[in-house]
């Protein structure tokens, strides 16, 4: 059957015109009570083709995906028509539709870490997917599962089968989930942000896998993403959504190279990967410092620092003899995948852990994790902006309290002076006084992260450590935050240590880069050197993972695949 499929895959243009689309959405509206989240959306997806729904959070893209799968939560009401193979999905009784779920329409979720039942083995859950194939023999079903696991690139299918979800990494889990989704050979695969929770190199491998399966198994792919670059690399057609309405739709080349709507143009401009030099004017002063055109002083010096943790009786070297230095008023980026030691490095830098060996100095003062007084002195000059502004701010505090807290802690100034400083810090990040009494719950993600930045600014630090400061934010909000950070640097001469796995963002923001892998710095240099002439294959692989936002030619993809195999084998 599979070989027959291969013969008939990829319908030519004529038959595509004649056969009705596999999925046709027409005038779809979804409302929660009175709030309409999807408004009159329509698109169609031909058999074997791919379509991407692009939009920020709140655009309704995931709601559409859930409507297609009929997994909308209680209280949601869907109107319009979703035709799958000519049958109206919305009108079918649940009992009838359930036979389509999994069998005809597969689902790949957003966050692989939460997408499998934590207290059941992978195998037990895989059996559910295998049951959809109507194969009565359990041993054969298991063989089919193991074949599928091998097919999606899992090295040790038998071991995966017996594992619990928490024993696998995010990338492996996403492979499992994709395997389970394609195992019953569905005609349509709905992938809801399938890579946004994953590292950048894994992101690329997972997307490659999805593309390959889509072609090999002749599956239609409905891809939901916030990333225009990814969408345009992977989909034949794009539908750009905002606030539940379609802004623009059409063939990928058309939408991507010549967006006609203002919103699509803005999206395009906000994607870091597509606009590496967007903030050049704001960033240039830092380069001038590096060039020695302005007075240069070394702000941070890390010399031969190591840190070893003991895990399960085994010792694990999280950071291995790393050295780097950061010039005052510039941004140094630490890049690498999860587990590369980035987080440990900044914990050492902040004095939260003490290095086993080596020395860290900030403004000439040595940082030591053991001495509380000196630690407090260091913290005044060294502040942290945490990754996720949705969890880093106490929800019961007002903006004013949150921003003032460091001043209260360090007993700086009178009450009136503190109030003035809070206002000044908020003004610096572009927030008005009217927000002072708001609680974090009443702020948007971008506003929250600005509050978090303002909070660090009140102490007038020289160095701010930014731990993936935009990874929890939408791309346009991310652009705003980057702009805030760069103008603060230009105005106040701040030094940043910027931790990220988003290389495109690093390219836009940083002056110097250290590439970390397995606790070591494998390559470092100015951002231009690293990005234009990477010397290490690992750096090249990281750079190669940046979605380029165009249909990469087959040869380029193959070359990249070979390169990655070389490195990760």
């Amino acid at each position, binding site marked *: 059957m599979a070989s027959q499929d291969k013969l008939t895959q990829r319908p030519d243009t004529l038959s595509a015109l004649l056969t009705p689309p596999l999925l046709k959405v027409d005038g779809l509206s979804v409302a929660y009570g009175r709030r309409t989240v999807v408004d009159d959306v329509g698109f169609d997806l031909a058999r074997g083709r791919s379509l991407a729904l692009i939009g920020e959070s709140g655009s309704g893209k995931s709601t559409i995906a859930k409507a297609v799968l009929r997994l909308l939560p209680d209280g949601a009401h869907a109107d319009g028509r979703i035709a799958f193979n000519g049958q109206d999905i919305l009108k079918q009784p649940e009992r009838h539709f359930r036979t389509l779920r999994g069998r005809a329409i597969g689902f790949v979720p957003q966050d692989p870490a939460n997408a499998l039942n934590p207290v059941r083995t992978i195998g037990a859950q895989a059996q559910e997917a295998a049951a959809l194939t109507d194969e009565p023999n359990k041993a054969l079903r298991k063989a089919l599962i193991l074949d599928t696991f091998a097919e999606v690139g899992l090295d040790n299918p038998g071991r995966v089968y017996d594992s*619990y979800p928490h024993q696998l990494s995010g990338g*492996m889990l996403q492979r499992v989930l994709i395997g389970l989704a394609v195992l019953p050979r569905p005609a349509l695969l709905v992938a809801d942000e399938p890579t946004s929770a994953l590292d950048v190199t894994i992101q690329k491998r997972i997307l490659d896998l999805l593309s390959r399966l889509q072609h090999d198994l002749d599956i239609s792919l409905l891809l939901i993403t916030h990333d225009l670059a990814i969408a345009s690399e992977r989909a034949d057609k794009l539908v750009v959504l905002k606030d539940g309405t379609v802004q623009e739709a059409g063939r990928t080349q058309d939408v991507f190279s010549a967006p006609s709507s203002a919103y699509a143009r803005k999206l395009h401009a906000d994607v870091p990967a597509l606009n590496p030099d967007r903030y050049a004017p704001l960033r240039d002063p830092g380069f001038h410092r590096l060039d020695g055109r302005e007075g240069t002083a070394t702000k941070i010096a890390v010399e031969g620092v190591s840190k070893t943790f003991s895990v399960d009786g085994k010792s694990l070297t999280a950071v291995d003899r790393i050295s780097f230095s950061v010039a005052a008023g510039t941004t140094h980026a630490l890049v690498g995948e999860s587990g590369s030691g980035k987080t440990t490095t900044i914990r050492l830098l902040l004095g939260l852990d003490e290095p086993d060996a080596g020395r860290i100095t900030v403004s000439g003062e040595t940082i030591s994790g053991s001495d509380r007084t000196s630690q407090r002195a260091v913290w005044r000059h060294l502040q942290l902006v945490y990754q996720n502004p949705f969890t880093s701010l106490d929800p019961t505090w007002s903006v004013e309290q949150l921003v003032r807290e460091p001043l209260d802690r360090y007993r700086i100034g009178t009450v009136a002076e503190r109030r003035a400083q809070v206002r000044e810090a908020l003004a610096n990040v572009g927030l008005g006084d009217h927000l002072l009494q708001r609680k974090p719950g009443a702020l948007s993600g971008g506003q929250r992260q600005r509050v978090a930045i303002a909070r660090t600014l009140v102490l007038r630090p020289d160095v701010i450590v930014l731990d993936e400061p935009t990874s929890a934010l939408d791309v346009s909000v991310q652009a705003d935050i980057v702009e805030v950070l760069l103008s603060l640097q230009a105005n106040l001469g701040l030094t940043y240590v910027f931790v990220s796995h988003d290389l495109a963002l690093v390219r836009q923001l940083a002056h110097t880069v250290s590439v970390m892998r397995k606790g070591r710095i494998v390559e470092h240099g100015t951002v231009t050197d690293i990005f234009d002439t990477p010397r290490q294959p690992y750096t090249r692989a990281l750079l190669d993972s940046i979605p380029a936002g165009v249909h990469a030619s087959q040869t380029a993809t193959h070359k990249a695949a070979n390169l990655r195999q070389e490195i990760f084998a």
Partner: protein
Amino acid sequence: MNRSYLDYAAKRIGQAVIVILLSYVFTFIVVSVLPGDPITNVLRDPQNGFSEEEIQQIIAAQGLDRPVLVQLWASLSQFLSGDLGLSMRSNRPVSTLIAEVLPSTLVLATSGLAVAIVLALVIGYGTQFLPRRYGQGLLRGFPSLFLSVPNFVIGLVLIHIFGFQLGLFRVINADSFWATFFAAVALGIPVSAQIAEVLIANLDHEARQDYAAVARGRGISQSQLFFRHLLKPSALPVVTVVALTIGELLGGSLITETVYGRTGIGSLVQRSVTTQDLPVIQAVVSLAAVAFVVVNLIADLVYPLLDPRVKLIGTVKPRPATGDDTFDDRVEGIPS
């Protein structure tokens, strides 16, 4: 059965032994500190006609003139060697008295627990899948309703309806199947409320998790979702709650036995309290403490075996990173 589990078990058992000893000491001290010494009360009752000399002789013979700590030590070592002493009223061994009534109470408590668990499961299932218009909200109100109605009221209502009105069981013959059944229902309803409350909260939480949506995306039915996916992670914390309800079951049995006229630990305690039969009270309280501690010990020991995610003390594992390489390559290195 790995090393860390054995360490964990040893530690838990040690803690349990300490708790039992402390509870014995506590009961002993409370009883001896409280005003109204029952022994002298009895002896000095003019109706019994003991002379002061005789009273002093008896007290000396019983060792009651020794310092409290010495008495405590004697009593505790007796308890540990399994000797619960003699009842002051009947002069029979306390262990015999307890052994006579224990089976009846055990039957009542276990069937009460069974009723509670079944009821909680039914309520839990209903709250997930009963459509709103068929009274899902009403079902969610059941636990608080059950908690607020005392079990003797439920017991009396059940006796009235099924005993007197329907004649299903003879109210006087407490050992018939139906009498035990309805006693168990009366005992189980308030207990089920505690279990159901935790179960519902956990089910709601689990049902909102991504994996539930993903599992439905694999085309499984509602009851498959409930029994295969939601129930186990939701029921795991309930193991702890069930262990804690043993106190409820013991206390509830006392009342239920009275309402249904059953002999059991409850009626024994009632008799001993009214007659101030100290050795019996001390023994029953201590044994209740032992039962409570042992049941909770079992729950603690079983829990890590049921939940694959539980990390035992001393084996702090970092969160798996989002890497894609190998099983062992996913350690970020920061014990968070």
